[in-house]
């Protein structure tokens, strides 16, 4: 840690990990209800549990991004954060808003647009927090050195905050509502968040591999160019069947096919940088998470996205368990694993100590990744059967669901593995103070960090 105000990131990461725990436990409970549908059905219905599961995910990923920005902007800009106080006020607003949202969901107060269910006052709180954040990091950024990493990060963060405005626009016309809803949902995860992801990944590669900044930054511009060129019109793959014109079937199919490219490029980039790397960084867990993130993002977002994105296929698979399979693996690979990579890299530095517990951390990677992969496979099989029985044969929804019990049981099992992995990760970050397995000479001698 070169600048003392980077310490702000620590608080963001702690809160993010707390919400991460809530998110996976909510997911596990929802998965159990698929197996045993009467569980809590009168006390805490499925829709409320799912809201907590998805909202907790989104908020903790954003907190991770904010924390990552507070960590890397000072280092890239070569100066302290403009105001530490503002950063803590921003965090406090987000914590109060999140607790307020969860509390009101539990008593049945919520909106009804998926993922944007927060009560209006919470939405305004998020807006205020976003403005504080933008002011704070922008003033830090503008006063200091500008690099491609911070250029791209700032652009991603500004655009994602601006798109939040569409969370307030809810036309009475359902089809218009859906169209503008995607301005937040799609243009977050398949455009602006990808800029943030690429910037953080670039920063990690710079630190972990010691490859020249010039090489990394050129790669970054190419990656984010392919991300936006494909991702913006790729929004069309959500406009096939919601009342929008038929030409979106071609626009969406063509451009979302190209959405595979940035994910393939990010994976190639990460592996190539490690291959070319001149430094042997001691934080092997951060490296594993970085490579794992780019790889799983390629499969989850790239391959599983392409699987059902062509309109001729999507006509049959739209809104089945295939979508759920893709959603889980892509969020895990692209955003969960990337945030955990950043936590793994930054936490030892923020706490001023060696990167301990590498083995436990790496074990948690395999446990979580294995669990998510298995979950994706079971949901894909379930979705394939569902697509055939419901969309081709024409059997009724519940009759089809009754045939899928085995897959939901296996999915619950994989969810247990993911939860155990998440707990192990948090434990290895926060609790254990010694390395559990003695490292070999390669790691011990690798005391030279990256740039």
């Amino acid at each position: 840690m070169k600048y003392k105000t980077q310490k702000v990131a620590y608080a963001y990461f702690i809160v993010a990990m707390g919400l991460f725990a809530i998110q996976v436990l909510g997911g596990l409970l929802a998965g159990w209800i698929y197996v045993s549908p009467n569980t809590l059905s009168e006390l805490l219905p499925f829709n409320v549990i799912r809201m907590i599961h998805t909202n907790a995910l989104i908020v903790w990923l954003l907190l991770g991004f904010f924390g990552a920005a507070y960590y890397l902007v000072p280092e890239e800009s070569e100066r302290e954060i403009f105001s530490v106080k503002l950063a803590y006020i921003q965090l406090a607003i987000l914590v109060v808003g999140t607790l307020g949202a969860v509390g009101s969901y539990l008593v049945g107060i919520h909106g009804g647009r998926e993922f944007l269910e927060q009560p209006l006052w919470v939405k305004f709180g998020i807006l205020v927090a976003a403005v504080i954040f933008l002011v704070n990091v922008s003033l830090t950024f503008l006063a200091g050195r500008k690099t491609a990493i911070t250029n791209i990060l700032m652009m991603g963060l500004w655009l994602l905050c601006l798109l939040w405005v569409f969370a307030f626009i809810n036309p009475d016309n359902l089809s218009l509502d859906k169209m503008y809803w995607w301005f937040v949902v799609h243009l977050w995860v398949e455009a602006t968040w990808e800029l943030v992801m690429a910037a953080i990944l670039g920063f990690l590669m710079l630190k972990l591999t010691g490859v020249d900044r010039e090489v990394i930054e050129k790669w970054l511009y190419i990656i984010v160019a392919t991300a936006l060129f494909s991702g913006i019109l790729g929004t069309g793959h959500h406009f096939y069947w919601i009342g929008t014109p038929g030409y979106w079937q071609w626009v969406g199919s063509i451009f979302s096919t190209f959405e595979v490219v940035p994910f393939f490029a990010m994976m190639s980039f990460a592996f190539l940088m490690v291959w070319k790397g001149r430094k042997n960084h001691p934080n092997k867990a951060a490296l594993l998470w970085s490579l794992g993130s780019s790889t799983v993002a390629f499969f989850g977002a790239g391959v599983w996205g392409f699987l059902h994105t062509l309109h001729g296929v999507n006509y049959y698979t739209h809104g089945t368990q295939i979508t759920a399979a893709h959603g889980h693996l892509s969020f895990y690979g692209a955003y969960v694993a990337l945030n955990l990579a950043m936590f793994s890299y930054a936490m030892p530095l923020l706490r001023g100590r060696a990167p301990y517990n590498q083995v436990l951390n790496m074990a948690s990677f395999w446990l979580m990744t294995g669990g998510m992969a298995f979950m994706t496979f079971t949901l894909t099989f379930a979705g394939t059967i569902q697509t055939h029985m419901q969309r081709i044969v024409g059997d009724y929804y519940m009759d089809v669901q009754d045939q899928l019990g085995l897959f939901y049981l296996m999915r619950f099992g994989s969810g247990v593995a993911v939860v155990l992995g998440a707990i192990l990760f948090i434990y290895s970050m926060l609790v254990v103070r010694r390395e559990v397995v003695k490292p070999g000479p390669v790691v011990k001698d690798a005391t030279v960090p990256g740039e």
Partner: protein
Amino acid sequence: MSELLTKSRARNVFYGGSIFFVVVFVALTAQSHRHIVEQSTAGMPLTEEVALGKHVWERHSCINCHTLHGEGAYFAPELGNVMTRWGAQDDPELAYEILDGWMQAQPSGIEGRRQMPRFEITEEEMRALAEFLRWADQTDTQNWPPNDAG
């Protein structure tokens, strides 16, 4: 490649190209907005009752179990074509009666069966919800879903 594509060129391609695609996207969505209002949802007037029905739908977060035009949670049946499935698309009174009967019977309490909660909904709201579902059903969704099963 390194000669031809310098960092500043890559950056300029990124900024220029992104602006181009944003402009195209905005133009297409403006056209789509018009298409939705004037054509694909114009088969039935967007009355205050339909709007109220949408609020009822939202207040109870139906989307976190059901899908509507294929979007939402995958825990309960698709509702974008539920009125067609019930044979009530052209009969507002029948649509209300079936919907009301169904909702009053929840939760079924049957062991091993997914449970729909009981919602406190007035008659006015229930009628509005039925109208909203009929309104959604008449939307031109490019012939999706493939069959009445949804």
